[in-house]
């Protein structure tokens, strides 16, 4: 039954124990530079692109900028549930196709004008623009009248049918089909129409204002130095209350020097990659470290169009025959875990009740024997006179890959399978895998969205050139379950559906699942109110974040 979601749901499936917080042990070691910086918060980041517009921002880092400056209709809480933001509440119609949002009154943009339904309509219409070339199209594609509006270059169609302003504080969106995850399409920041307004087709106007963004958010952009930093000033009239920190600087850091930046007190918050680095930060003593599984997983893709890999037993044998735990221990040193299904442990759809594929070379050998791959005296397996050689395409510049290669080669070599790795630049690999589909085996990782719907990756519809189902896994049962999951609005029921689907994926192995890694975020002990977790970052409730004195 469609629900009217308000506030966090009763669903507490995010396993809190997944988040590990290491408290600062020696706050007094906080360097003087940090102590002296009373009203400025410095957050380490990878360089944003400067596309400071919520409907254009491509990278995570641009979206941080956007979430400081703009507010969306809805937002999400730490558990990954939608929560009200600009919209006080919302309704979803019975058929799941109509979304009505009720906007809180009195929200002001930075220039003091009030935020109304017109602005929301403007924002979503902009995404539908025929000349729109940003990454948000998927958010509006299922809006009624999208095609008409988007295909029309002569400016005959003036509005998108599915976007309807009911009154200044109510807006309604109509979709062509019902989909449970659709709610997430309404989280993007709202652009003030009076500021950004443009003729249909003249989307360039938006681009010209990338570096002069204006929204209703807690902060305003003060200064942007490309490749170096973004500086924000607080919005004293913020509708959720005046922010406590005057200035925020997003300073560009990199993996090589992040530890030095943090420990020398130059940066208050930053993500730290490797466990060894976490160790160094821990020793510094004045950081709280938040460590939790990220919403992603790494896998090996086998081309299921290849006769050899069509055989489930072969896939399973390869899975059993790979010491994934060994690899993860070597590479992540406790900062990762084995993955057995395409869902992250942080998701409410995650389940443990599946085959763990413990390292078992004997079983692997048995399965391969069964599949007809015979080991000859040269130590390799043959079938129909053909040697079992796998050409493995992988990408360069990654320590992950460099550790994985010797282990795969070694492990599968022992099974009698020769692996020939071939490294290429990531973009090349992507083209080969997704566009040309010329591969036997590759490896990559997926970074997932909050909603656990797997159809964006595994559906039959994605089994086209350019589609995400590169391995070509088409399974009737899976199609059925995914469809059910999409149209079911009750989370408990969806959870059950996805449990089944994950079991299926675990059995069928469209991918050889490898690993989950952990994110580690270091937050200086002088910063209060930042509690990063898989679904929320430091920008969450930024107006409540404060800098405190440390003894």
């Amino acid at each position, binding site marked *: 039954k469609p629900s009217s979601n308000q506030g966090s749901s009763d669903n507490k499936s995010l396993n809190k124990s997944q988040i590990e917080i290491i408290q600062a042990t020696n706050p007094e070691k906080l360097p003087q530079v940090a102590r002296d910086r009373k009203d400025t918060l410095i957050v380490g980041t990878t360089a944003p692109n400067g596309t400071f517009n919520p409907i254009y921002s491509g990278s995570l880092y641009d979206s941080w900028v956007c979430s400081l400056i703009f507010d969306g209709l809805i937002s999400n809480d730490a558990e990954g549930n939608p929560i009200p933001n600009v919209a006080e509440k919302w309704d979803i119609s019975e058929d799941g196709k109509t979304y009505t949002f009720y906007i809180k009154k009195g929200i002001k943009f930075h220039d003091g004008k009030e935020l109304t339904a017109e602005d929301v309509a403007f924002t979503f219409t902009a995404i539908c623009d025929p000349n729109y070339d940003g990454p948000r199209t998927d958010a509006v594609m299922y809006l009624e009248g999208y095609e008409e509006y988007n295909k029309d270059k002569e400016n005959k169609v003036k509005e998108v049918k599915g976007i309807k302003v009911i009154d200044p504080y109510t807006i309604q969106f109509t979709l062509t089909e019902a989909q449970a995850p659709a709610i997430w399409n309404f989280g993007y920041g709202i652009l003030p129409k009076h500021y950004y307004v443009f003729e249909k087709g003249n989307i360039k106007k938006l*681009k010209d204002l990338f570096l002069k963004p204006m929204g209703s958010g807690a902060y305003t952009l003060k200064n942007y130095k490309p490749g170096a*930093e973004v500086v924000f000033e607080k919005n004293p009239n913020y509708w959720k209350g005046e922010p406590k920190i005057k200035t925020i600087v997003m300073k560009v850091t990199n993996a090589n020097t992040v530890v030095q930046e943090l420990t020398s007190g130059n940066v208050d918050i930053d993500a730290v990659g490797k466990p060894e680095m976490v160790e160094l930060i821990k020793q510094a003593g004045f950081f709280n470290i938040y460590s939790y599984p990220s919403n992603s997983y790494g896998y090996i893709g086998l081309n299921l169009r290849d006769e050899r890999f069509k055989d489930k037993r072969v896939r399973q044998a390869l899975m059993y025959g790979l010491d994934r735990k060994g690899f993860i221990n070597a590479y992540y040193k406790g900062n990762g875990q084995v993955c057995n299904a395409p869902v992250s442990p942080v998701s409410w759809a995650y389940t443990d009740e599946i085959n763990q594929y413990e390292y078992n070379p004997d079983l692997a050998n048995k399965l391969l024997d069964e599949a007809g791959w015979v080991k000859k005296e040269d130590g390799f397996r043959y079938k129909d006179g053909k040697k079992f050689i796998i050409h493995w395409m992988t990408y360069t510049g990654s320590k992950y890959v460099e550790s994985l290669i010797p282990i795969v080669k070694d492990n599968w070599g022992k099974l009698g399978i020769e692996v020939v790795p071939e490294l290429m630049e990531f*973009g090349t690999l992507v*083209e080969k895998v997704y566009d040309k589909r010329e591969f036997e085996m590759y490896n990559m990782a997926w970074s997932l969205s909050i909603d656990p719907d797997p159809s*964006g990756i595994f559906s039959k519809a994605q089994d086209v050139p350019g589609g995400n189902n590169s391995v070509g896994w088409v399974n009737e049962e899976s199609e059925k379950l995914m469809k059910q999951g999409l149209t079911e609005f009750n989370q408990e029921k969806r959870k059950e559906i996805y449990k089944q689907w994950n079991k299926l994926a675990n059995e069928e192995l469209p991918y050889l699942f490898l690993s989950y890694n952990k994110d580690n975020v270091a937050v200086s002990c002088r910063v209060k109110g930042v509690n990063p977790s898989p679904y929320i970052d430091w920008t969450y409730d930024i107006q409540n974040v404060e800098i405190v004195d440390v003894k």
Partner: protein
Amino acid sequence: MRQYITRRLLEMIPVLIGISILIFVIFQLAPGDAVSAIVDPKTSAETKAKLREQLHLNEPILVQYKYWVMDILKGQWGESFYYKQPVSRVINSFIWNSFYLSLASFLLSAILSIPIGVLSATKQYSKFDYIFTIFALIGISMPSFFFGLLLIKWFAVDLKLFPVSGMTNPGSTATGFALFKEVMHHMALPLIVLTLGSLAGLMRYTRSSMLEVIRQDYIRTARAKGLREKVVIYKHALRNALIPVVTIFGMSLPGLFSGAIITEQIFNWPGIGPIELQAVNTRDYPLLMGINMLLALLTLLGNLIADVTYALVDPRIRLK
């Protein structure tokens, strides 16, 4: 000479056009495009197709080239796929940072390497020579990220003499001389790394061509005139030894603008080096074209300057 320069400048036009076509074709032939680089479960195949159309990526090379040329003729260099902004603006916002750093390093290494090279030559096989030879070889055989990290550890973390990275203090609003001082403070470490890398080449070239020259008869004449050894070496000998060095100087012109990928990355210097690499990764052709054409132009200019300088340095060379 004026004629020669004019001719060479005119020659540059077809060469640049040729190069632009060449670069364009190579970009098109290189695997992947700006859209295929997007790997996101939220982005469907349809959306990708739409984007391709929007960016003209589906059309034949020639048509795409036409679009690019038309953008150029309109006075802008097209729009970066990744930054969604005019290429000239993107380049402009990074290239000067690279230029300041590279120029400083170029000047520093020229100022250091020439005298060191000269001294190494005049005191061939002395302790001085050995020390700097070894120094130079360390400079070229060790990767720059190693030096970078080492310097950061020593000078930024342990001694706290210099900032770890960046070009200015976070959130700084300094202007004028204060800004200059701030930038210099941040520049020190990357400058050392870059200079160390380029020192060796110049130094060794200077040394070897000095070695050739200091045994010439006219050096003896200069000495016989009673000139001070400094004048003999730095005026009479160096001028003759400069020819290969001039070539290197000419060749370093594009380098002044192209940025140093690794050093800039390690020190988070907001230069163009990492941007170019990123443009390759994201297959941002308009941006790549822009950067490469700029560098091509500078390369041609640098070589022209070197050629003209030969004739100025060595009157025996006739330019035709």
